[in-house]
């Protein structure tokens, strides 16, 4: 069933993009990372699209693998994934059609402490966990589409976006979860055009559900406590938990928000920025029969501000780009049992990067870059008196070399980076320690405080002979991260893929 849906959506989204991409801009510049970054920022936000872009298509199929013991407590020791990503847009008279489709199938090995479909860095509480390491298969797709109609030429356009996400996950070791997530978002918007400046305003409204069922093949694990590793817990905050509580959960997600996007061009400069504000509420229930008047055990409110700015400047000699990103999330729960808030969660991520592409029109080209990122994570569980406040800086440099030919193009890059903990504060009172503290909170505290060095190596090969109309990219990437601890831990990353510039 999932396969059929995926194929259908693939055809729907990648088909039009490839067919309509005959006027693809700068098809020869598939290795122009600055250009691609600028265009991709504006695929589903037409206000950000560069003026000279009328169509774009991209299809990427890749294999990812990461493995190693330097990971967080709710992260798998080993993870491999097959991912398909296709996106594109085209201008058809007064209409602009855009789509973005992503599919992934993930296999995780030796994952403990998280019986959830979502990732380990989700701020939302109310999920199952068990200390038993297990194998998981996860599969999901995210389909986004948008259509805009230029109501007044070069002045005003109206648009409607739709976003659909489905995710499915299952474990194969007791306790074995089965997770099904569904989410649908609509985003009507308006686009104002003032010469080379565009301003877009979109409203967002989304609803979704997530059902989680935990079963045991050996039923004794679910009715006793003989094997502590098989006990399923529900994490209700950051330490507050219940043991072998209900075997089924349902989450109802509501989201409203808006995004304000702004783009302007002046001579060689291009400024793209987007500001997104979202307010979501998740109702958590164990009542899986009713879809109305269900019992609410807790709710979780999350406010998110996401801002991205991209400044590009291109001349004959060089192309420069500065990227700034800032995400801020603030959440709190409300526990029905306690009749008050028990859990606070905040995350703020900042990133800045600068890169320069030299001798872009030459056979031998160079890229240089630097980046900095700060990730901060704050959680507080009032009743359990657990509190963490972590921040991690990442400093990185990158260097790339292009060998550009008429039919072939090679790119080699190396990116060393350094991970340096900033604030690493935690409070877990001895009287309040429990299995979550020991299995998750304390190992994550150790992880947060670890310095580490990393190195990414990447090679791209572009061939223009395979398809006449498209450029084909083959790429390989290898990454190694090593902690600077007494007994160092490592994490290795490998990626191999193929992409088509349509």
């Amino acid at each position: 069933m999932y396969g059929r849906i995926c194929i259908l959506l693939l055809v729907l989204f990648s088909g039009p993009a490839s067919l309509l991409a005959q006027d693809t801009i700068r098809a020869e510049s598939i290795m122009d990372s600055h250009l691609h970054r600028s265009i991709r920022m504006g695929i589903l936000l037409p206000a950000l699209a560069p003026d000279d872009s009328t169509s774009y298509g991209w299809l990427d199929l890749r294999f990812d693998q990461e493995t190693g013991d330097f990971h967080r407590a709710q992260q798998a020791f080993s993870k491999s994934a097959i991912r398909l990503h296709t996106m594109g847009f085209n201008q058809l008279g007064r209409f602009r059609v855009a789509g973005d489709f992503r599919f992934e199938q993930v296999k995780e090995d030796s994952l403990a402490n998280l019986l959830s479909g979502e990732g380990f860095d989700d701020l939302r509480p109310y999920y199952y966990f068990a200390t038993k390491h297990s194998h998981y298969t996860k599969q999901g797709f995210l389909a986004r589409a948008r259509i805009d109609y230029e109501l007044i030429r070069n002045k005003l356009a109206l648009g409607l976006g739709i976003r659909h996400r489905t995710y499915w996950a299952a474990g194969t070791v007791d306790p074995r979860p089965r997770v099904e997530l569904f989410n649908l978002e609509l985003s009507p918007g308006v686009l104002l055009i003032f010469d080379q400046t565009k301003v877009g305003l979109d409203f967002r409204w989304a609803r979704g559900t997530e059902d989680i069922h935990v079963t045991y093949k050996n039923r004794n694990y679910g009715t006793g406590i003989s094997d502590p590793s098989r006990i399923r817990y529900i994490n209700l905050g950051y330490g507050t938990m219940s043991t072998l509580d209900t075997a089924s959960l349902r989450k109802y997600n509501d989201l409203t928000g808006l995004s304000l996007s702004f783009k302007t061009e002046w001579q060689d400069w291009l400024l793209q920025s987007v500001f997104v504000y979202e307010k979501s509420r998740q109702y958590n229930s164990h009542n899986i029969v009713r879809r109305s008047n269900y019992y609410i055990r807790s709710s979780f409110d999350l406010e998110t501000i996401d801002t991205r700015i991209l400044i590009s400047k291109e001349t004959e000699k060089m192309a420069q780009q500065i990227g700034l990103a800032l995400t801020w999330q603030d959440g709190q729960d409300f526990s029905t049992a306690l009749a008050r808030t028990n859990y606070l969660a905040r995350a703020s991520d900042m990133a800045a990067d600068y890169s320069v592409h030299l001798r872009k029109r030459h056979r031998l080209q160079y890229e240089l870059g630097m980046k900095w990122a700060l990730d901060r994570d704050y959680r507080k569980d009032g009743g359990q008196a657990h509190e963490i406040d972590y921040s991690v800086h990442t400093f990185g440099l990158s260097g790339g070399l292009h060998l550009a030919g008429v039919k072939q193009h090679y790119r080699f890059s190396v990116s060393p980076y350094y991970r340096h903990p900033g604030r690493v504060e935690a409070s877990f009172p001895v009287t309040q320690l429990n299995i979550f503290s020991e299995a998750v909170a304390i190992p994550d505290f150790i992880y947060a405080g670890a310095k580490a060095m990393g190195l990414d190596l990447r090679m791209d090969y572009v061939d223009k002979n395979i398809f006449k109309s498209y450029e084909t990219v083959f790429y390989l990437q290898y990454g190694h991260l090593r902690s600077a601890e007494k007994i160092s831990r490592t994490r290795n990353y490998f990626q191999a893929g193929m992409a088509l510039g349509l």
Partner: protein
Amino acid sequence: MKTKFIYILAFGVLFITSCRKDKDISQPVALSIQLETNPEEVSFDLPLAGAEITLVNKANGAEYKAVSNAGGQYAFSSLAPGTYTISVLLTIDAQLYTERSGNYTDKSVSFSYTMDNVSLLDDTSITAILSLSSQVGDWVFKQIYNYGSNTSQGASFRDVFVEIYNNSNTTLYADSLIFAISYGKANNNTGSYLLDNLQFDWSQSIGMTGPGDANKDYVYAKAVYMIPSNDTGNRYPVAPGKSIILAQTAIDHTKPYVAADGREVGIGDAELTIDLSKADFEAYQYPYEQKTQPGRAQYRFDVDNPDVTDVEVIYSISGNRDMVLNPQGRESFIIFKAPAGKDPNTLPLYAVPTDRDINAETTVYQQIPVSYILDGVEVHHPIATSRLPRRLPVSVDAGFTFAPGGQYSGQSLVRRTKEVFAGRRILQDTNNSSVDFGYLEKADPSKGNSSFID
């Protein structure tokens, strides 16, 4: 322009990275406990220091232990808000008790307090009135196998039994010894006609009469089984350190057998279950059913082994068609003997207090005075979240017990051996099953060394 940009950026960074920590959220709560004694039981100065206080968080099973100070106090300063079970056990040395009370005893004396479903959402102070919970009888439960075995490969609920032990130094007679399954509320819902711990307030049962406290002085049973006797009461002697086994169905469960309806009951894995064909007694309920519900078809698993003596069914609710012991810890168990001249068949019957419309179809439970009880064991679910309000008064069992494997695990509850004297095992009987009982990975009806926890 450049300066302004830097200021804006710096402000943004500060805004984003600053973490507001001033929201009003729940906090750990404090609990102070003051121990006191019941003046009706203790008229002398009893030292309250050294009492073991145990709190169990019912949501996650987190357990906190502390010891009271000289003033009989203890304060827990940091507990997660939630619902707790509070237990207190004060053990007084025999010599000290004799000195203070003036009553000679050669055994230590226990005082206890327990309360279920205590809601701690704010700082709380509790006065715990300790009750005397001394050993009352020489008959004790040695082994309780209520969990049953694997439902598909074992014998499920059919291979359960209880083993009753002579813990004295003289021969006792099992004649007229009664085993009863006590009943209580099957959930933790709030509502009317309930005690603070959410158990039924039996004093509000319709028609409740009689002396004493309906909740503290009585136990309510859903099924009552009595070992038969002869005229002299010496038909079934049990030597010191020996025991008798009462089985639900006294057959060899490791082999296929024919059920009461003529169909075969198979066995998938004989290792998972046990041979009960050597049991001393068996509950065969069909004759009782024919008396109370004439014409009712025989329950297919209520199989009679003619080689094993049947116990007399004194009382059973209609839904209980054999001596089925609840595998989820929703029932507790007692043994008692009615005093001379008292016919246990005449013990009164009451409906639960939430039944306000009593008619012939209403389920009623037999009321058994605590003063008759020789031993009782409060059994709970291994998972704290699933535990129900306790059924037995603390004077019968100051604690509770469970086997970690829970239902259909094949595990059994076994009273620990306190000491071996002249080759005879004396089992631990502090009247607190939390400390008196352990468990066997597999129930053992052999009565041999392997059936003890030494």
